């Protein structure tokens, strides 16, 4: 049984995830080269990766179907964790997002994404089993489930993670088979909510970022600095880039938050168009592989878990690179697998592990 299971381990998916992660470690090393204070961080990321691989394999080995019974429990525990942070978390960079373990700061909101995925997948699969997917109550209840997590993360404040939760939920709803008319209604509801959200919920810095994105001339050079420098970094890369560890924007630190938010700019500057496209294609292959696994899942629960993971990676991939390319407003969304950060990397790798778990337990008589 075990051996048979591991035979179906999706090595391509694993290889793609590993390629992206190792790529990330290399780019982080380049982004932080010359920085004596953070000299150890590429190694830390490598260590996170090693631990993350273990987590991936554990998640893969674990039968996802067993998660169904504890899905809500996991979700409630995560909500509790978010509450704890809200009360006692470590403040850094003006937001309360972290739980400190020594000098390692765990970011539970990252892991919360996985909780949301599992809980929603369980909810939607049970709704489908009962034939209630067509009901308007399904999306309403799903959104109500999401609401406390989104609210707690939003209050940290961490708009981008809150948004990514909504994006994950939305995509899962769509992929679960929500009728088109409900999607339209939901879309209209979101549009209607936009004005009160802008007025009441968004904080000034969030509004500023959105405004500065919509109308760059409104903001001063100082405020646009990060985005401008990212554009310069990317643009100056050319075909083959300035060479690894040789990008002037990166190495001379004109580019800020290089090892996290703007790691894609570092890639585009140092490895050029070829390198950046390769990175995008790697993501494309990974996402394609995930949708393939979703397609061969033996049950709806598994399929929706993989869809959730896909949604999570897709959302962050688009938002991060879109921000780097000045297609989207500046947000602090890390690039999956590549950006520096243990919590993020682990979340992604566990997500891949869950997908592997689904892949290993797919229909015995599949198409392949």
């Amino acid at each position, binding site marked *: 049984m075990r051996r048979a299971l591991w035979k179906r381990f999706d090595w391509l998916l694993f290889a793609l995830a590993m390629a992206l992660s190792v790529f990330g470690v290399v780019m982080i090393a380049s982004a932080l080269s010359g920085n004596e204070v953070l000299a150890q961080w590429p190694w830390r990321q490598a260590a996170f990766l090693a631990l993350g691989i273990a987590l991936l394999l554990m998640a893969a080995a674990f039968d996802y179907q067993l998660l169904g019974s504890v899905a809500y429990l996991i979700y409630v525990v995560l909500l509790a964790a978010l509450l704890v942070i809200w009360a006692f978390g470590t403040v850094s*960079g*003006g937001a309360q997002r972290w739980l400190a373990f020594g000098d390692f700061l765990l970011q539970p909101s990252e892991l919360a994404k996985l909780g949301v995925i599992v809980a929603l997948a369980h909810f939607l699969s049970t709704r*489908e089993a009962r034939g209630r*997917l067509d009901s308007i109550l399904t999306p309403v209840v799903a959104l109500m489930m999401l609401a406390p997590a989104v609210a707690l993360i939003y209050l940290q404040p961490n708009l981008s993670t809150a948004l990514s939760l909504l994006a994950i939920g939305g*995509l899962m709803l*769509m*992929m*679960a*088979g929500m009728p088109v008319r409900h999607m339209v209604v939901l879309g209209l509801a979101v549009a209607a909510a936009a004005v009160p959200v802008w007025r009441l919920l968004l904080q000034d*810095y969030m509004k500023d970022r959105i405004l500065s994105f919509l109308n760059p001339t409104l903001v*001063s*050079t*100082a405020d646009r600095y990060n985005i401008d*420098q990212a*554009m*310069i*970094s*990317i*643009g*100056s*890369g*050319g*075909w083959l880039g300035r060479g690894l560890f040789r990008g*002037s*924007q990166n190495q*001379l*630190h*004109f580019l800020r938050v290089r090892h996290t938010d703007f790691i894609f700019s570092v890639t*585009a500057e140092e490895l*050029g*168009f070829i390198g*950046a*496209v390769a990175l*995008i*294609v790697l*993501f*494309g292959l990974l*996402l*394609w592989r995930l*949708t393939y696994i*979703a*397609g061969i899942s033996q049950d*709806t629960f598994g*399929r929706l878990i993989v*869809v959730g993971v*896909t949604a999570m990676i*897709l959302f962050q*991939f*688009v938002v991060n*690179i*879109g921000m780097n*390319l000045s*297609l989207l407003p500046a947000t602090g969304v890390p690039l999956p697998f590549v950006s520096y950060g243990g919590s993020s990397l682990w979340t992604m790798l566990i997500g891949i592990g869950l997908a592997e778990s689904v892949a290993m337990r797919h229909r015995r008589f599949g198409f392949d």
Partner: protein
Amino acid sequence: MQRKIDTAQVRLILLRLAVVAVMALLIGRLWQLQMVQGEEYRILADRNRFREMDVTAPRGVIYDRNGEILAQNEPSFTVMVVPADLPEPPEGSKEDPAGAVLDRLMALLAITDPLAGSPTPTPTAQPTATAPAKKDPAKQEDPESLFAIHEREPWIMPRDEIETAIKKGYIGGAYRPIRIARYIKDYQAFAINEDLVNLPGIQLVLEPIRDYPTGNLTAHLLGYMGHIPEGQLEDYEANGYRRDEQVGLTGLEYSREEQLRGAPSRQTIEVDVNGRRVRTVGEESKAVPGLNLYLSLDMDLQRAATEALQEALDNSSGFTKAMEGVVVALDPRTGAIRALVSLPAYDNNLFTKGITDEAWQALTTDPNLPLFNRSIGGQYPPGSTFKILVASGGLQDGVINTRTLLGDGFDGRNDGIISLPNEYFPWDRTKDQPFYSWIHKYGHGHGLVAVRDALTVSDDIFFYQLGGGYREFRGLGPTEEGKYAKDFGLGELTGIELPGESSGLIPTPKWKRINYAENWLTGDTYNMSIGQGFVLSTPLQMASATAAIANRGHLYRPQLVEKITDADGNVVGKLEPDLIRDVSVDAANLDTVREGMYGAINWPQGTATKVKVSGVVIAGKTGTAEFFRDNNKDHQPDRDDKGNLPTHAWFTSFAPYVDPEIVVTVFVANGGEGSAVAAPIATKVLEAYFHGQGEQQAPPTTEPTEKVTAAP
């Protein structure tokens, strides 16, 4: 169930399509940024990391011909701030670490000298007159404290202006240093230097200011430096100047600006985001220091001339007290200026070290115009010194020869008066216009004389006749006279390389018709022939003309720079005599004039027999030029109690008589008699030239003789 799965599969396919679409969008955007606009961004990236640094070139030093320093660079400290290097407040916090840095800097700039115990002047405060600092004795300090050279007061940009400039800097060029304080005191600079670790973004640099050790003595020659005049900013910028650069504004500092400035260079360096130099790009480019100028000027002579002239002005007892005078000494063999004094003068250090409004006001409103270099810009009737040119022309034109006798006596009376018949009523002797010789006041004339004696005694009657004719004797006439005067360089710029030269005036009949709407009369020629009337000359022009007579016919452009060296001492330029023209008077005729000038000093009846320098034969010509002024505003020319007009005193001379090497021309405005006032000054200058301290102090060399005795 089957339908549901189908729906799921369809939606997965849609998801895949969405992924592909997103990838295409991102790659398309990437293509746009990297392929289409790549060049622009590459330039922007280079602009980020490459910085042009000004590498300033030390300005050339000016020496006299013996190596005495006339203009040099004095170190001075400047404080600059680089906006990008100022600390930034953490996001969202209300702290202002950049403001704290400025506060700290301001506190250091406000340090009072523990020794002086007086508060450091702020930009708004009046400069405190500190105890008289040690002064170079060469700097002739004006006794009035108004013109005292204070130690340059610190200039500190007001705090709000600094903040505005920093804000502007963040947009324009966050890495371009902004000068926020200059000329700060040494102890302030030391305090700031010690505290630089706590002052991120603050830089302390040495920027020299110009110092003129010889001050008043050479101010008219050297000029001074200052900020680029508002209207010329663009011209200077087009030539590679910074807007805040100091440039030569007048004198040699102006005319030799290009050579003195050298070539400040720019060095491209690669910097990181904090503006720290990562590496120097390309070859280390060094600024080329300005060239050093060795003037032909002899400071010993300049000093002696200044002292002699000042003494004469102080002791003057002419019509009214004389305030202005000029001494020009030049080498007739080359045109090299040896001394050029114009009094009153000013201290050019005032301009480079910070002039007070009061001092500026006083300088510019002084009726004696201390800023005016009258040696080249002042136009005066040359009086009898002009006769040497009239004599040259008369001889050359054949109007007279060396033995032609003219002068008093044609009318039967040797009384120093010549009566010119009225041009319209020549038969009516009551309408005759009398012209006087200076000797008239002694009750007699010079009688009939030949040209040498006429020059020796300065016989006005002789020159009236030579110029304007008398009865059947046809004179030179105004046109020919003017032609020769111009040939000797009068009426045109000498071309000396100092700004502010005047060309003087040699009148012609046409000129008179145009300017006075009157016909030229013989009387005008008479006046012109003794250097009166409309003739105007600058002292330098007279010196230059004298040189042309002394060297027997070569008119040279007066020059000031004898040698140009680069910073390593290599000679890159030497004075080459610049011949304007050979005058159209034969050397033999000039020799006759030289003999007349010899007589003026060495014959008993000469006008300047007191000019004596032992061992040197001198030749010269005095001049006493009447001029009109109306100081009491009665619309009549001022006259003294004997009815005489005020006079300028002139004396122009050369020595030695054989192979002359120095020409000395002295002019004292309103000085009185040339022989009494100007000639003694020239004597002192010539004395200093031939028997200056340098020669007297040369110790006799005893060493060779000892060696000889030691030899077997």
